[in-house]
């Protein structure tokens, strides 16, 4: 091959690089190891971390993924497929994305879905940008974002839209209910609000008064953006049916649909909207069309580049999707069916309620909010959460997320979730360990009489 090129050595092919820039052997880069050595290293590191019993949710849920899901998704045909630039040679990938869009539209009761974004948080950022593009009447670029929304989502959305003159305004939560009290919104009546974000369930697991919020937005000319847990939609009312006409945009993280916890990613974000706004929808979108012989086929359509230059500002640079995660999610949804998803959701929910019941029988421990929740809830401890959680972790129980950093006003509060994988036995172990950990910190060392007497 060198002969055909007309050079003596491979090095000669790099002769346009100025000599003084060449980096030489990179001594600081380690030399190659074999697969067996890599396996030894990675196994040792994995063992360091172990597999503690997980009661943390907070946007990433320890659901069981049927083995068939990843065994199919990991087939080379999906796993190593290149991007479907040549539609005719990528019908498998494209039809799968179309099925995904169809399933997500059905699950959310929205008209259309894109073919995924990076994750739930960046999907919210894209939803906000989209809301600004859609709401041509609004000049304020003020978007109301409840404090009851996942703190990381709020930060990510802020970081991404900050330089485009968009203001994310924090909406407080009701201290008793943990939800957005619709009465609070009255202060914004008649003001120029571009969009209202509605989490359901919210970060605390609490259910918002979604119908009332959507109606307020409609009356006040604000675009509505729902942020939902897709698994919850198998048992809760879908955003497309909130209020009289449903929300305008709906987004969230697809992790509960087949993605392993995997330290936070890869997951995928999803973004659905009304038909009327489809030309503002960022990311890949697959359409069904015909070939020259009239046969059905699938292709990427509404190319993102056209869409995003439509209106200057409120721009998005999305170029890709989370293909493999979407493949897994589509298989997962097909395998579980509506019935399987709602069975899982119900089982998570009842596990979390049982956990709440058991924990709140401990002295000084209580459920923080009085509103209904879905499969996650805030628990108040009699002592600082930090130390208690550390003690639990030492016994291989991840007892929940410490809320003191993001919500210091909640005191010693933790956010707990027990998915369908948690057993009654594990809940009892958690309860027992918590009791001892609290006692250790001098919280409520002796229990004089059963609580509730």
């Amino acid at each position, binding site marked *: 091959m060198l002969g055909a090129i007309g050079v003596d050595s491979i090095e000669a092919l790099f002769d346009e690089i100025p000599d003084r820039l060449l980096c030489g052997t*990179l001594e600081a880069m380690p030399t190659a190891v074999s697969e067996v050595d890599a396996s030894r290293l990675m196994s040792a590191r994995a063992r360091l971390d172990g597999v503690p019993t997980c009661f943390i949710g907070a946007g990433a849920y320890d659901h069981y993924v049927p083995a068939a899901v990843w065994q199919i998704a990991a087939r080379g045909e999906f796993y190593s497929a290149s991007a479907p630039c040549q539609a005719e040679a990528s019908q498998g990938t494209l039809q799968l994305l179309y099925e995904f869009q169809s399933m997500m539209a059905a699950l959310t009761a929205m008209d259309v879905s894109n073919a995924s974004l990076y994750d739930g948080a960046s999907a919210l950022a894209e939803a906000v940008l989209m809301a600004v593009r859609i709401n041509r009447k609004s000049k304020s670029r003020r978007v109301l974002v409840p404090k009851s929304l996942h703190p990381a989502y709020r930060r990510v959305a802020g970081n991404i839209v900050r*330089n485009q003159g968009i203001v994310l305004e924090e909406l407080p939560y009701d201290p008793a209910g943990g939800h957005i009290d619709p009465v609070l919104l009255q202060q914004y009546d008649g003001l120029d609000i571009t969009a209202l974000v509605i989490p359901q369930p919210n970060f605390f697991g609490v259910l918002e008064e979604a119908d009332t919020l959507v109606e307020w937005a409609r009356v006040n000319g604000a675009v509505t953006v729902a942020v939902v847990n897709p698994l919850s939609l198998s048992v809760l009312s879908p955003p497309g049916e909130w209020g009289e006409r449903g929300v305008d945009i709906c987004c969230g993280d697809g992790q509960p649909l087949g993605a392993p916890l995997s330290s936070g990613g890869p997951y995928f974000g999803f973004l659905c909207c009304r038909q009327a706004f489809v030309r503002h929808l960022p990311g890949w979108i697959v359409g069904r069309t015909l070939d020259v012989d009239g046969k059905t086929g699938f292709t990427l359509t509404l190319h993102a580049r056209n869409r995003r230059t439509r209106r200057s500002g409120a721009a998005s640079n999305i170029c890709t999707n989370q293909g493999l995660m979407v493949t897994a999610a589509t298989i997962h949804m097909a395998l579980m069916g509506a019935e399987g998803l709602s069975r899982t959701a119900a089982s998570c929910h009842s596990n979390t309620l049982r956990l709440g019941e058991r924990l709140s029988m401990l002295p000084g421990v209580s459920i923080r909010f009085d509103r209904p929740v879905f499969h996650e809830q805030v628990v108040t401890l009699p002592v600082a959460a930090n130390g208690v959680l550390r003690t639990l972790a030492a016994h291989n129980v991840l007892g929940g997320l410490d809320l003191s950093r993001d919500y210091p006003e909640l005191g010693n509060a933790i956010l707990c979730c027990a998915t369908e994988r948690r057993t009654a036995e594990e809940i009892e172990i958690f309860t027992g360990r918590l009791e001892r950990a609290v006692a250790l910190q001098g919280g409520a060392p002796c229990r004089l009489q059963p609580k509730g007497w």
Partner: protein
Amino acid sequence: GTRYTPRGADSLAMLPEFLARHPEAPEGHSQGFLACLYDLQEMLRVVTGMQGISLTPAAGAQGEFAGVAMIKAYHAARQEFERDEMLVSAADHGSKQASVVMCGYKVRSIPTKPDGDIDLASLKTMLGRRTAGVMLTIPSGLGVFDRGIEAVAALVHGVGALLHCDGVNLTAILGKVRPGDMGFDVVHLDLHKGFFAPHGGGGPGAGPVGVSASLLPYLPVPIVGLAGDRYSWLCEQERPESIGRLSAFAGNAGVLLRVYVNLLMLGREGITRVAEYATLNANYLLKELMKAGFEAVHPDRRATHEFGVTLRRQVRELEVSSRDISKRLLDYGVDAPATWFPPIFPECLLLKPAETENKETLDRFVGAMKSILKEAETDPDLVKGAPYRLPVRRLDDVRAARDLDLAWKPANG
């Protein structure tokens, strides 16, 4: 083209403990995972020659955005608010425009010379007090290595602006020359391009960013730190000047683990070999296509790992478009060229043979190109009607965009 995804890395990144690790697991249950990410940061620091790395961007485009956002934060910290322009090479990918606008900058386009290098004279006239930064792809979007890169860096830094590198093509020069040594202030990588993350039909990817000392404080969080023998997350609190987080947790962690294992197994020798084989393949293919009568976009330059072939003559003489040819290639079972950008070179095929292809495959590709050329001469309608041998024939994209059908509905199913 499609790249083999090493299955060993895959299995090791999916060890049960890694799959089960909650993103909010305490650091005491995370030392193994954090050690991997820390080592990956260090490896990427070495191969890019930058001072610091953040792994968190979820894909190349998010890394690109992070780079521009850091430049914005840098100038803001210096109160240099008059800098409102980003200069972007005319040969570059369309997402740059959007990333720049997302950060509140205006875009100006820098012309390239006919040989593919940046036109230094024009650059000089464009640079000034309003310049926030200059964005280049190295090697460029048409696969040439800019020989004047040191002069470019000097000019850019001379006016107080920063130099931004799109590292999507770094594969071609890995282990040979590093963005940090060339004077770049920020580079973003595309791990499912050069670093063997699985392609997955589009994603997930990962788009780490590396920065020079000037941009260190602004790196997106979280980053993995090491104190003594203890790894820990560095987040908003520890890095108050950061442009912040870009995803709810730490980006596409599972992809990062795969890339880490791949780099372990490639090692120092392996990464250079990837660059060499990719470059060898591209230059061989270029020469063979030129022998077969095709015209290179930059005939007098070395190809890096990719190069452009222009079909202007064929299009003019034979009534077939580059799109027709790329569709016809599908019938020959060869991976069709990605697409026909950049827009400054119409009717151009961008060819990018993976480093894992062998000579046989490259020769088959040349053979297919020759046959198609002959077909175009004798029977242009044959080429215009392609493809024929795939599950569907040429799809109606106009209909797809006009009569939108984006979700199956029981009613109109």
